[in-house]
Protein backbone atom coordinates (compact mmCIF):
# COMPACT_ATOMS: atom_id res chain seq x y z
CA UNK A 1 0.00 0.00 0.00
CA UNK A 2 1.25 3.47 -0.74
CA UNK A 3 1.56 6.21 1.86
CA UNK A 4 -1.75 7.81 2.80
CA UNK A 5 -0.84 11.25 1.45
CA UNK A 6 -4.09 12.80 2.65
CA UNK A 7 -3.20 12.02 6.27
CA UNK A 8 0.36 13.29 5.78
CA UNK A 9 -0.92 16.47 4.16
CA UNK A 10 -3.40 17.09 6.97
CA UNK A 11 -0.57 16.92 9.50
CA UNK A 12 1.67 19.37 7.62
CA UNK A 13 0.28 22.61 9.07
CA UNK A 14 0.81 21.51 12.66
CA UNK A 15 4.17 20.04 11.78
CA UNK A 16 5.56 23.23 10.23
CA UNK A 17 4.28 25.20 13.22
CA UNK A 18 6.24 22.86 15.51
CA UNK A 19 9.33 23.40 13.37
CA UNK A 20 8.95 27.19 13.65
CA UNK A 21 8.54 27.10 17.43
CA UNK A 22 11.46 24.73 17.92
CA UNK A 23 13.70 26.74 15.59
CA UNK A 24 12.91 29.98 17.43
CA UNK A 25 13.72 28.35 20.80
CA UNK A 26 16.95 26.88 19.49
CA UNK A 27 17.94 30.16 17.89
CA UNK A 28 17.53 31.95 21.19
CA UNK A 29 19.55 29.27 23.00
CA UNK A 30 22.19 29.37 20.28
CA UNK A 31 22.57 33.13 20.71
CA UNK A 32 22.97 32.65 24.43
CA UNK A 33 25.62 29.98 23.93
CA UNK A 34 27.40 32.14 21.39
CA UNK A 35 27.63 35.04 23.88
CA UNK A 36 29.25 32.73 26.46
CA UNK A 37 31.53 31.18 23.86
CA UNK A 38 32.66 34.55 22.53
CA UNK A 39 33.26 36.09 25.94
CA UNK A 40 35.27 33.06 27.11
CA UNK A 41 37.50 32.97 24.05
CA UNK A 42 40.75 33.87 25.74
CA UNK A 43 40.10 32.13 29.06
CA UNK A 44 41.22 28.74 27.81
CA UNK A 45 43.56 28.02 30.72
CA UNK A 46 40.79 28.60 33.26
CA UNK A 47 38.25 26.63 31.25
CA UNK A 48 40.63 23.72 30.84
CA UNK A 49 41.37 23.58 34.56
CA UNK A 50 37.67 23.62 35.46
CA UNK A 51 36.80 20.89 32.96
CA UNK A 52 39.66 18.65 34.03
CA UNK A 53 38.64 19.09 37.65
CA UNK A 54 35.02 18.23 36.82
CA UNK A 55 36.14 15.22 34.75
CA UNK A 56 37.88 13.81 37.80
CA UNK A 57 34.68 14.03 39.80
CA UNK A 58 31.91 13.33 37.29
CA UNK A 59 30.73 9.79 36.92
CA UNK A 60 30.01 10.21 33.26
CA UNK A 61 31.20 13.08 31.08
CA UNK A 62 31.58 13.67 27.38
CA UNK A 63 32.44 17.18 26.24
CA UNK A 64 35.02 19.39 24.57
CA UNK A 65 37.99 20.96 26.31
CA UNK A 66 40.04 23.82 24.85
CA UNK A 67 43.73 23.42 24.05
CA UNK A 68 46.03 26.44 24.00
CA UNK A 69 44.24 28.13 21.13
CA UNK A 70 41.59 30.79 21.88
CA UNK A 71 38.03 29.66 21.24
CA UNK A 72 37.56 32.19 18.45
CA UNK A 73 40.61 30.98 16.53
CA UNK A 74 40.10 30.97 12.78
CA UNK A 75 43.20 30.06 10.82
CA UNK A 76 43.34 30.55 7.05
CA UNK A 77 44.46 27.66 4.91
CA UNK A 78 48.25 27.27 5.10
CA UNK A 79 50.35 26.53 2.05
CA UNK A 80 50.74 22.91 1.04
CA UNK A 81 54.16 21.31 0.52
CA UNK A 82 54.69 20.00 -3.04
CA UNK A 83 55.31 16.43 -1.88
CA UNK A 84 53.41 14.43 0.70
CA UNK A 85 51.59 11.11 0.90
CA UNK A 86 47.91 10.75 1.61
CA UNK A 87 46.13 7.46 2.11
CA UNK A 88 42.61 6.43 3.03
CA UNK A 89 40.86 3.26 4.08
CA UNK A 90 37.17 2.56 4.05
CA UNK A 91 35.19 -0.57 4.66
CA UNK A 92 31.89 -2.17 3.86
CA UNK A 93 30.32 -5.40 4.99
CA UNK A 94 27.81 -8.11 4.30
CA UNK A 95 25.83 -8.24 7.49
CA UNK A 96 25.01 -11.71 8.83
CA UNK A 97 21.27 -12.25 8.86
CA UNK A 98 19.06 -14.96 10.25
CA UNK A 99 16.77 -14.46 7.27
CA UNK A 100 19.37 -15.84 4.84
CA UNK A 101 19.82 -19.49 3.99
CA UNK A 102 23.24 -19.49 5.62
CA UNK A 103 24.93 -17.21 8.14
CA UNK A 104 28.10 -15.44 7.04
CA UNK A 105 29.76 -12.09 7.21
CA UNK A 106 32.26 -10.50 4.84
CA UNK A 107 34.25 -7.41 5.72
CA UNK A 108 35.71 -5.61 2.74
CA UNK A 109 38.28 -2.82 3.00
CA UNK A 110 39.61 -0.61 0.23
CA UNK A 111 42.90 1.23 0.69
CA UNK A 112 44.27 3.91 -1.62
CA UNK A 113 47.63 5.65 -1.33
CA UNK A 114 48.51 8.73 -3.36
CA UNK A 115 51.99 10.21 -3.54
CA UNK A 116 51.11 13.82 -4.15
CA UNK A 117 53.66 15.61 -6.27
CA UNK A 118 54.67 12.44 -8.10
CA UNK A 119 52.06 12.65 -10.88
CA UNK A 120 51.76 8.87 -10.53
CA UNK A 121 48.45 7.05 -10.22
CA UNK A 122 47.74 6.06 -6.60
CA UNK A 123 48.18 2.47 -5.38
CA UNK A 124 44.96 0.66 -4.57
CA UNK A 125 44.44 -2.47 -2.48
CA UNK A 126 41.51 -4.60 -1.43
CA UNK A 127 41.21 -6.76 1.67
CA UNK A 128 38.24 -9.10 1.90
CA UNK A 129 37.71 -11.21 5.00
CA UNK A 130 35.18 -13.97 5.41
CA UNK A 131 34.68 -13.76 9.16
CA UNK A 132 35.35 -17.05 10.97
CA UNK A 133 32.17 -19.01 11.56
CA UNK A 134 32.86 -19.21 15.28
CA UNK A 135 32.90 -15.41 15.58
CA UNK A 136 29.41 -15.02 14.10
CA UNK A 137 27.60 -16.01 17.26
CA UNK A 138 27.41 -14.57 20.73
CA UNK A 139 25.34 -16.35 23.35
CA UNK A 140 23.97 -18.52 20.59
CA UNK A 141 22.67 -15.55 18.61
CA UNK A 142 24.07 -13.89 15.51
CA UNK A 143 26.23 -10.87 16.31
CA UNK A 144 24.64 -7.45 15.92
CA UNK A 145 25.49 -4.54 13.60
CA UNK A 146 27.65 -2.82 16.21
CA UNK A 147 29.96 -5.81 16.34
CA UNK A 148 30.25 -5.96 12.56
CA UNK A 149 31.00 -2.23 12.51
CA UNK A 150 33.78 -2.82 15.00
CA UNK A 151 35.22 -5.60 12.81
CA UNK A 152 35.11 -3.19 9.89
CA UNK A 153 36.81 -0.39 11.88
CA UNK A 154 39.42 -2.88 13.02
CA UNK A 155 40.07 -4.07 9.46
CA UNK A 156 40.37 -0.48 8.20
CA UNK A 157 42.98 0.45 10.81
CA UNK A 158 45.03 -2.73 10.27
CA UNK A 159 44.96 -2.12 6.51
CA UNK A 160 46.24 1.42 7.04
CA UNK A 161 49.01 0.11 9.26
CA UNK A 162 49.99 -2.53 6.69
CA UNK A 163 50.18 -0.12 3.78
CA UNK A 164 51.68 2.83 5.66
CA UNK A 165 54.96 1.01 6.12
CA UNK A 166 57.81 2.44 4.04
CA UNK A 167 55.80 5.35 2.67
CA UNK A 168 57.62 8.61 2.13
CA UNK A 169 56.73 11.05 4.90
CA UNK A 170 54.85 13.15 5.66
CA UNK A 171 51.98 10.67 5.55
CA UNK A 172 48.31 11.43 6.20
CA UNK A 173 45.91 8.52 6.80
CA UNK A 174 42.21 9.32 6.52
CA UNK A 175 39.19 7.33 7.59
CA UNK A 176 35.56 8.31 7.39
CA UNK A 177 33.86 8.99 10.70
CA UNK A 178 35.02 9.11 14.28
CA UNK A 179 38.64 8.45 15.08
CA UNK A 180 37.76 7.12 18.50
CA UNK A 181 35.66 4.06 19.11
CA UNK A 182 32.02 4.46 19.91
CA UNK A 183 31.53 2.03 22.78
CA UNK A 184 28.00 3.10 23.70
CA UNK A 185 25.76 0.15 22.91
CA UNK A 186 28.45 -2.48 22.47
CA UNK A 187 28.36 -5.10 25.14
CA UNK A 188 30.09 -7.97 23.35
CA UNK A 189 32.84 -9.62 25.33
CA UNK A 190 35.06 -9.62 22.25
CA UNK A 191 35.25 -5.83 22.16
CA UNK A 192 38.08 -5.16 24.61
CA UNK A 193 40.73 -7.21 22.77
CA UNK A 194 39.59 -5.86 19.41
CA UNK A 195 39.57 -2.29 20.74
CA UNK A 196 43.05 -2.85 22.12
CA UNK A 197 44.22 -3.96 18.70
CA UNK A 198 42.77 -0.81 17.15
CA UNK A 199 44.56 1.36 19.72
CA UNK A 200 47.75 -0.62 19.10
CA UNK A 201 47.42 0.11 15.38
CA UNK A 202 46.96 3.82 16.10
CA UNK A 203 49.99 3.71 18.38
CA UNK A 204 52.13 2.00 15.75
CA UNK A 205 51.00 4.52 13.13
CA UNK A 206 51.86 7.36 15.52
CA UNK A 207 55.32 5.88 16.06
CA UNK A 208 55.81 5.94 12.30
CA UNK A 209 54.73 9.58 12.28
CA UNK A 210 51.61 8.78 10.26
CA UNK A 211 48.99 11.47 10.80
CA UNK A 212 45.70 9.66 11.29
CA UNK A 213 42.54 11.69 10.94
CA UNK A 214 38.84 10.92 11.02
CA UNK A 215 36.77 13.02 8.61
CA UNK A 216 33.19 13.71 9.65
CA UNK A 217 30.90 15.17 7.04
CA UNK A 218 27.82 17.09 8.25
CA UNK A 219 28.81 16.73 11.91
CA UNK A 220 26.02 16.90 14.45
CA UNK A 221 27.89 16.59 17.74
CA UNK A 222 27.51 19.30 20.39
CA UNK A 223 30.62 18.91 22.50
CA UNK A 224 31.04 22.68 22.91
CA UNK A 225 27.46 23.04 24.13
CA UNK A 226 28.07 20.18 26.54
CA UNK A 227 31.23 21.91 27.77
CA UNK A 228 29.40 25.13 28.56
CA UNK A 229 26.43 23.23 30.02
CA UNK A 230 28.86 21.68 32.51
CA UNK A 231 30.49 25.02 33.25
CA UNK A 232 27.10 26.68 33.72
CA UNK A 233 26.56 24.53 36.81
CA UNK A 234 27.80 25.74 40.18
CA UNK A 235 31.15 24.11 40.94
CA UNK A 236 29.71 21.97 43.75
CA UNK A 237 27.10 20.47 41.40
CA UNK A 238 29.43 19.47 38.59
CA UNK A 239 30.24 16.07 40.05
CA UNK A 240 26.59 15.15 39.60
CA UNK A 241 26.40 16.50 36.04
CA UNK A 242 23.92 14.61 33.92
CA UNK A 243 24.10 15.30 30.20
CA UNK A 244 20.43 14.41 29.78
CA UNK A 245 19.46 17.58 31.62
CA UNK A 246 22.14 19.81 30.09
CA UNK A 247 21.16 23.40 29.38
CA UNK A 248 22.58 23.93 25.87
CA UNK A 249 20.91 20.97 24.26
CA UNK A 250 20.70 20.49 20.50
CA UNK A 251 23.11 23.19 19.36
CA UNK A 252 25.73 21.62 17.21
CA UNK A 253 29.35 22.68 17.26
CA UNK A 254 29.08 23.33 13.53
CA UNK A 255 26.20 25.78 14.05
CA UNK A 256 28.18 27.61 16.73
CA UNK A 257 31.48 27.71 14.83
CA UNK A 258 29.80 28.91 11.67
CA UNK A 259 29.97 32.33 13.37
CA UNK A 260 33.75 31.97 13.62
CA UNK A 261 34.74 30.29 10.37
CA UNK A 262 33.29 32.83 8.00
CA UNK A 263 35.97 32.58 5.32
CA UNK A 264 36.30 29.53 3.07
CA UNK A 265 39.21 27.28 4.02
CA UNK A 266 39.48 28.43 7.65
CA UNK A 267 39.91 26.00 10.51
CA UNK A 268 38.81 26.43 14.11
CA UNK A 269 40.78 26.02 17.31
CA UNK A 270 41.74 22.48 18.22
CA UNK A 271 39.72 21.02 21.09
CA UNK A 272 40.21 17.88 23.11
CA UNK A 273 37.42 15.36 23.59
CA UNK A 274 36.95 14.64 27.29
CA UNK A 275 35.36 11.26 27.76
CA UNK A 276 35.18 9.51 31.07
CA UNK A 277 34.42 6.31 29.14
CA UNK A 278 37.59 6.51 27.09
CA UNK A 279 40.37 5.08 29.19
CA UNK A 280 42.95 6.23 26.62
CA UNK A 281 42.06 9.89 26.93
CA UNK A 282 45.12 10.76 28.97
CA UNK A 283 47.68 9.58 26.47
CA UNK A 284 48.90 10.51 23.01
CA UNK A 285 45.88 8.89 21.41
CA UNK A 286 43.33 11.13 23.14
CA UNK A 287 40.95 12.32 20.48
CA UNK A 288 41.14 15.99 19.51
CA UNK A 289 39.19 17.79 16.82
CA UNK A 290 38.90 20.93 14.80
CA UNK A 291 36.34 22.21 12.33
CA UNK A 292 37.05 23.25 8.78
CA UNK A 293 34.99 25.45 6.49
CA UNK A 294 35.10 23.69 3.14
CA UNK A 295 32.29 25.80 1.70
CA UNK A 296 32.45 28.87 -0.47
CA UNK A 297 32.17 32.59 0.23
CA UNK A 298 28.72 33.22 1.68
CA UNK A 299 27.90 29.49 1.77
CA UNK A 300 29.92 27.98 4.62
CA UNK A 301 29.95 24.21 5.08
CA UNK A 302 31.66 22.95 8.20
CA UNK A 303 33.19 19.52 8.58
CA UNK A 304 34.86 18.01 11.62
CA UNK A 305 38.33 16.49 11.65
CA UNK A 306 39.39 14.26 14.52
CA UNK A 307 43.08 13.73 15.27
CA UNK A 308 45.10 11.93 17.94
CA UNK A 309 46.54 14.03 20.74
CA UNK A 310 50.20 13.63 19.79
CA UNK A 311 49.63 15.67 16.62
CA UNK A 312 48.56 18.73 18.57
CA UNK A 313 52.17 19.25 19.67
CA UNK A 314 53.25 19.80 16.08
CA UNK A 315 51.68 22.86 14.52
CA UNK A 316 53.22 22.13 11.13
CA UNK A 317 51.40 18.78 11.05
CA UNK A 318 48.07 20.38 11.83
CA UNK A 319 48.80 22.87 9.05
CA UNK A 320 49.59 20.11 6.59
CA UNK A 321 46.45 18.19 7.50
CA UNK A 322 44.37 21.37 7.23
CA UNK A 323 45.69 22.21 3.77
CA UNK A 324 45.66 18.65 2.47
CA UNK A 325 42.06 17.96 3.49
CA UNK A 326 40.93 21.22 2.01
CA UNK A 327 42.66 20.37 -1.26
CA UNK A 328 41.01 16.95 -1.24
CA UNK A 329 37.54 18.43 -0.83
CA UNK A 330 38.11 20.81 -3.71
CA UNK A 331 38.70 18.00 -6.16
CA UNK A 332 35.03 17.08 -5.79
CA UNK A 333 33.88 20.64 -5.40
CA UNK A 334 30.29 20.11 -6.52
CA UNK A 335 29.70 18.06 -3.37
CA UNK A 336 32.92 18.72 -1.44
CA UNK A 337 34.29 15.58 0.15
CA UNK A 338 37.86 14.21 0.20
CA UNK A 339 38.53 12.53 -3.13
CA UNK A 340 40.80 9.96 -1.52
CA UNK A 341 38.06 8.89 0.91
CA UNK A 342 35.51 8.70 -1.86
CA UNK A 343 37.83 6.41 -3.80
CA UNK A 344 38.48 4.22 -0.76
CA UNK A 345 34.72 3.87 -0.38
CA UNK A 346 34.32 3.11 -4.07
CA UNK A 347 36.92 0.36 -3.74
CA UNK A 348 35.34 -1.10 -0.63
CA UNK A 349 31.66 -1.09 -1.46
CA UNK A 350 30.20 -4.54 -2.06
CA UNK A 351 27.87 -4.47 -5.05
CA UNK A 352 24.71 -6.57 -5.12
CA UNK A 353 26.11 -8.92 -7.77
CA UNK A 354 29.27 -9.42 -5.69
CA UNK A 355 27.12 -10.11 -2.67
CA UNK A 356 25.26 -12.78 -4.62
CA UNK A 357 28.50 -14.27 -5.93
CA UNK A 358 29.93 -14.61 -2.41
CA UNK A 359 26.75 -16.41 -1.35
CA UNK A 360 26.96 -18.68 -4.40
CA UNK A 361 30.58 -19.56 -3.56
CA UNK A 362 29.59 -20.40 -0.01
CA UNK A 363 26.70 -22.56 -1.15
CA UNK A 364 29.02 -24.44 -3.50
CA UNK A 365 31.48 -25.00 -0.67
CA UNK A 366 28.68 -26.23 1.62
CA UNK A 367 27.50 -28.56 -1.10
CA UNK A 368 31.00 -29.93 -1.75
CA UNK A 369 31.45 -30.66 1.95
CA UNK A 370 27.98 -32.14 2.29
CA UNK A 371 26.81 -29.48 4.71
CA UNK A 372 23.04 -29.01 4.57
CA UNK A 373 21.90 -25.50 3.68
CA UNK A 374 19.35 -23.75 5.80
CA UNK A 375 16.31 -22.05 4.33
CA UNK A 376 15.91 -18.37 3.76
CA UNK A 377 12.95 -16.93 5.61
CA UNK A 378 9.61 -16.54 3.85
CA UNK A 379 9.85 -12.83 4.56
CA UNK A 380 13.19 -12.67 2.73
CA UNK A 381 11.91 -14.79 -0.14
CA UNK A 382 8.94 -12.47 -0.66
CA UNK A 383 11.20 -9.42 -0.56
CA UNK A 384 13.38 -10.93 -3.27
CA UNK A 385 10.29 -11.56 -5.43
CA UNK A 386 9.00 -8.01 -5.20
CA UNK A 387 12.28 -6.29 -5.93
CA UNK A 388 15.99 -6.65 -6.40
CA UNK A 389 16.75 -5.99 -2.78
CA UNK A 390 19.93 -6.73 -0.95
CA UNK A 391 19.34 -10.06 0.76
CA UNK A 392 19.87 -8.56 4.22
CA UNK A 393 17.54 -5.60 3.85
Amino acid sequence: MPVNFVQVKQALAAYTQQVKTHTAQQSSLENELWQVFESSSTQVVKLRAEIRHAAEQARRLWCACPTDEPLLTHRPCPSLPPNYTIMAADGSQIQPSRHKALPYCVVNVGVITARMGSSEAPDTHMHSRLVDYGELFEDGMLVNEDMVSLWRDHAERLALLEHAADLQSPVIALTDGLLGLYMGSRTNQQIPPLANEIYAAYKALAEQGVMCAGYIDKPGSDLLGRMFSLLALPENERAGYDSKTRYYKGISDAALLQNVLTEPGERSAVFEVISTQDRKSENDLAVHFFYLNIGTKGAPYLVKVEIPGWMVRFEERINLLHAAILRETRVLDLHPYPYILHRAHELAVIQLNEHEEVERLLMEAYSTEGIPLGMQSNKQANKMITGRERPDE
Partner: protein
Amino acid sequence: MNESKITIGKLLRADNAQFVAGCRVSELDAPAFGALVRVELNEKIDVYGLIANISIADDGLVRQLVSGVSLPPEYGADNRYNRNLPVEISVLTVGYREELAIYHLLPPRPPLSLDTIYLCSPAELVRFTSSGRFGYFRHILRAFTLPVGELLAAHLKQAQTAHLAAGNAQWFGEAARELITLLRDDHTTLTNVLGALANIDPDWVA
Protein backbone atom coordinates in the same frame (compact mmCIF):
# COMPACT_ATOMS: atom_id res chain seq x y z
CA MET B 1 48.36 -17.74 -36.68
CA ASN B 2 50.44 -16.69 -33.73
CA GLU B 3 52.63 -14.02 -35.34
CA SER B 4 50.97 -11.17 -33.47
CA LYS B 5 50.13 -11.48 -29.83
CA ILE B 6 49.51 -7.86 -28.98
CA THR B 7 46.38 -7.99 -26.85
CA ILE B 8 44.08 -5.03 -27.20
CA GLY B 9 41.16 -6.14 -25.07
CA LYS B 10 38.53 -8.71 -24.27
CA LEU B 11 35.22 -9.17 -25.95
CA LEU B 12 32.16 -7.62 -24.33
CA ARG B 13 29.42 -8.42 -26.89
CA ALA B 14 29.17 -9.57 -30.48
CA ASP B 15 27.04 -10.64 -33.40
CA ASN B 16 28.14 -11.99 -36.76
CA ALA B 17 28.72 -8.56 -38.29
CA GLN B 18 30.41 -6.70 -35.47
CA PHE B 19 31.77 -7.00 -31.99
CA VAL B 20 32.76 -4.78 -29.09
CA ALA B 21 35.83 -5.23 -26.95
CA GLY B 22 36.74 -3.55 -23.70
CA CYS B 23 40.16 -2.57 -22.47
CA ARG B 24 41.70 -0.32 -19.86
CA VAL B 25 43.10 3.07 -20.75
CA SER B 26 46.55 1.75 -19.91
CA GLU B 27 46.13 -0.76 -22.76
CA LEU B 28 45.08 1.89 -25.24
CA ASP B 29 48.47 2.31 -26.94
CA ALA B 30 47.98 -0.55 -29.38
CA PRO B 31 44.52 -0.19 -30.92
CA ALA B 32 44.05 2.46 -33.59
CA PHE B 33 41.04 3.42 -35.64
CA GLY B 34 41.05 1.36 -38.87
CA ALA B 35 43.46 -1.29 -37.56
CA LEU B 36 42.90 -4.96 -38.46
CA VAL B 37 42.31 -7.15 -35.42
CA ARG B 38 41.79 -10.85 -34.90
CA VAL B 39 39.87 -13.09 -32.48
CA GLU B 40 40.53 -16.81 -32.28
CA LEU B 41 37.24 -18.71 -32.43
CA ASN B 42 39.06 -22.02 -32.12
CA GLU B 43 42.29 -23.61 -33.34
CA LYS B 44 41.11 -23.57 -36.94
CA ILE B 45 39.18 -20.32 -37.23
CA ASP B 46 40.14 -16.69 -36.68
CA VAL B 47 37.67 -13.82 -37.13
CA TYR B 48 39.02 -10.56 -38.61
CA GLY B 49 37.65 -7.10 -38.13
CA LEU B 50 38.52 -3.43 -38.50
CA ILE B 51 38.43 -1.11 -35.50
CA ALA B 52 35.56 1.18 -36.44
CA ASN B 53 35.16 3.20 -33.27
CA ILE B 54 36.85 3.72 -29.91
CA SER B 55 34.75 5.22 -27.15
CA ILE B 56 35.67 6.27 -23.64
CA ALA B 57 32.99 5.72 -20.99
CA ASP B 58 32.28 8.16 -18.17
CA ASP B 59 30.44 7.99 -14.87
CA GLY B 60 29.22 10.36 -12.18
CA LEU B 61 32.64 10.81 -10.64
CA VAL B 62 34.33 11.64 -13.93
CA ARG B 63 31.61 14.16 -14.72
CA GLN B 64 32.16 15.80 -11.35
CA LEU B 65 35.93 15.86 -11.82
CA VAL B 66 35.54 17.47 -15.23
CA SER B 67 33.63 20.36 -13.70
CA GLY B 68 35.92 20.64 -10.66
CA VAL B 69 38.28 23.53 -10.09
CA SER B 70 41.33 21.53 -9.12
CA LEU B 71 42.38 18.09 -10.29
CA PRO B 72 45.82 16.97 -9.11
CA PRO B 73 47.62 14.94 -11.80
CA GLU B 74 47.71 11.95 -9.44
CA TYR B 75 43.90 11.82 -9.41
CA GLY B 76 43.67 12.26 -13.16
CA ALA B 77 45.95 9.22 -13.43
CA ASP B 78 43.83 7.40 -10.84
CA ASN B 79 40.76 7.79 -13.01
CA ARG B 80 42.60 6.72 -16.14
CA TYR B 81 44.49 3.73 -14.83
CA ASN B 82 42.82 2.49 -11.64
CA ARG B 83 39.11 2.98 -12.03
CA ASN B 84 37.02 0.37 -13.74
CA LEU B 85 35.86 2.42 -16.71
CA PRO B 86 36.68 0.37 -19.80
CA VAL B 87 37.45 1.83 -23.16
CA GLU B 88 35.06 0.28 -25.67
CA ILE B 89 36.47 -0.74 -29.04
CA SER B 90 33.87 -1.40 -31.75
CA VAL B 91 35.01 -3.74 -34.47
CA LEU B 92 33.41 -4.28 -37.89
CA THR B 93 33.76 -7.92 -38.92
CA VAL B 94 35.34 -8.17 -42.39
CA GLY B 95 36.19 -11.86 -42.79
CA TYR B 96 37.66 -14.95 -41.27
CA ARG B 97 40.38 -17.55 -41.70
CA GLU B 98 39.65 -21.25 -41.72
CA GLU B 99 42.74 -23.44 -41.79
CA LEU B 100 44.93 -21.65 -44.37
CA ALA B 101 42.14 -20.08 -46.40
CA ILE B 102 40.99 -16.50 -45.90
CA TYR B 103 37.38 -15.58 -46.65
CA HIS B 104 36.01 -12.07 -46.94
CA LEU B 105 32.69 -13.36 -45.61
CA LEU B 106 30.98 -13.20 -42.25
CA PRO B 107 32.23 -15.92 -39.88
CA PRO B 108 30.23 -19.07 -39.03
CA ARG B 109 29.55 -17.65 -35.55
CA PRO B 110 30.56 -14.57 -33.61
CA PRO B 111 33.30 -14.69 -30.99
CA LEU B 112 32.25 -15.21 -27.38
CA SER B 113 32.33 -13.01 -24.29
CA LEU B 114 35.80 -12.47 -22.86
CA ASP B 115 37.57 -13.82 -25.97
CA THR B 116 40.86 -11.99 -26.40
CA ILE B 117 41.25 -9.56 -29.30
CA TYR B 118 44.70 -9.30 -30.86
CA LEU B 119 46.17 -6.65 -33.10
CA CYS B 120 47.19 -8.12 -36.48
CA SER B 121 50.83 -7.86 -37.49
CA PRO B 122 51.80 -6.10 -40.78
CA ALA B 123 52.33 -9.57 -42.31
CA GLU B 124 48.80 -10.63 -41.35
CA LEU B 125 47.44 -7.36 -42.67
CA VAL B 126 49.18 -7.95 -46.02
CA ARG B 127 47.96 -11.52 -46.12
CA PHE B 128 44.32 -10.62 -45.35
CA THR B 129 44.14 -7.65 -47.74
CA SER B 130 45.89 -9.53 -50.57
CA SER B 131 43.52 -12.42 -50.43
CA GLY B 132 40.81 -12.46 -53.10
CA ARG B 133 39.70 -9.29 -54.80
CA PHE B 134 38.93 -6.81 -52.00
CA GLY B 135 35.74 -8.64 -51.09
CA TYR B 136 35.87 -7.24 -47.55
CA PHE B 137 35.22 -3.71 -48.90
CA ARG B 138 31.51 -4.50 -49.17
CA HIS B 139 31.27 -5.00 -45.38
CA ILE B 140 32.68 -1.51 -44.92
CA LEU B 141 30.61 0.16 -47.63
CA ARG B 142 27.32 -1.12 -46.26
CA ALA B 143 28.05 0.07 -42.72
CA PHE B 144 25.93 3.18 -43.09
CA THR B 145 26.18 4.19 -39.44
CA LEU B 146 29.96 4.43 -39.62
CA PRO B 147 32.10 7.22 -41.12
CA VAL B 148 32.89 5.02 -44.11
CA GLY B 149 35.29 7.43 -45.84
CA GLU B 150 37.33 7.92 -42.69
CA LEU B 151 37.38 4.23 -41.86
CA LEU B 152 38.52 3.31 -45.38
CA ALA B 153 41.17 6.00 -45.33
CA ALA B 154 42.52 4.86 -41.96
CA HIS B 155 42.55 1.23 -43.05
CA LEU B 156 44.08 1.88 -46.49
CA LYS B 157 46.80 4.04 -44.99
CA GLN B 158 47.87 1.29 -42.59
CA ALA B 159 47.56 -1.38 -45.28
CA GLN B 160 49.52 0.70 -47.80
CA THR B 161 52.39 1.05 -45.30
CA ALA B 162 52.41 -2.71 -44.74
CA HIS B 163 52.28 -3.49 -48.47
CA LEU B 164 55.05 -0.99 -49.30
CA ALA B 165 57.23 -2.57 -46.61
CA ALA B 166 56.48 -5.95 -48.21
CA GLY B 167 57.53 -4.64 -51.67
CA ASN B 168 54.07 -4.38 -53.15
CA ALA B 169 53.73 -0.81 -54.43
CA GLN B 170 50.71 -1.60 -56.60
CA TRP B 171 48.29 -2.55 -53.82
CA PHE B 172 47.03 0.92 -52.94
CA GLY B 173 46.21 1.82 -56.57
CA GLU B 174 44.36 -1.46 -57.08
CA ALA B 175 42.38 -0.96 -53.87
CA ALA B 176 41.44 2.59 -54.83
CA ARG B 177 40.32 1.53 -58.33
CA GLU B 178 38.19 -1.25 -56.81
CA LEU B 179 36.51 1.26 -54.51
CA ILE B 180 35.75 3.57 -57.45
CA THR B 181 34.17 0.65 -59.27
CA LEU B 182 32.10 -0.39 -56.26
CA LEU B 183 30.90 3.17 -55.69
CA ARG B 184 30.26 4.16 -59.28
CA ASP B 185 26.51 4.43 -58.59
CA ASP B 186 26.90 6.18 -55.21
CA HIS B 187 28.30 9.59 -55.97
CA THR B 188 28.02 10.95 -52.42
CA THR B 189 29.95 8.12 -50.80
CA LEU B 190 32.47 8.09 -53.67
CA THR B 191 33.15 11.78 -53.15
CA ASN B 192 33.69 11.20 -49.44
CA VAL B 193 35.98 8.24 -50.06
CA LEU B 194 38.01 10.05 -52.72
CA GLY B 195 38.36 13.01 -50.40
CA ALA B 196 39.69 10.71 -47.70
CA LEU B 197 42.01 8.88 -50.14
CA ALA B 198 43.41 12.22 -51.27
CA ASN B 199 44.66 12.72 -47.75
CA ILE B 200 46.63 9.50 -47.97
CA ASP B 201 48.15 9.92 -51.41
CA PRO B 202 47.33 13.23 -53.16
CA ASP B 203 49.41 12.23 -56.20
CA TRP B 204 47.31 9.15 -56.85
CA VAL B 205 43.99 11.00 -56.81
CA ALA B 206 45.40 13.75 -59.01
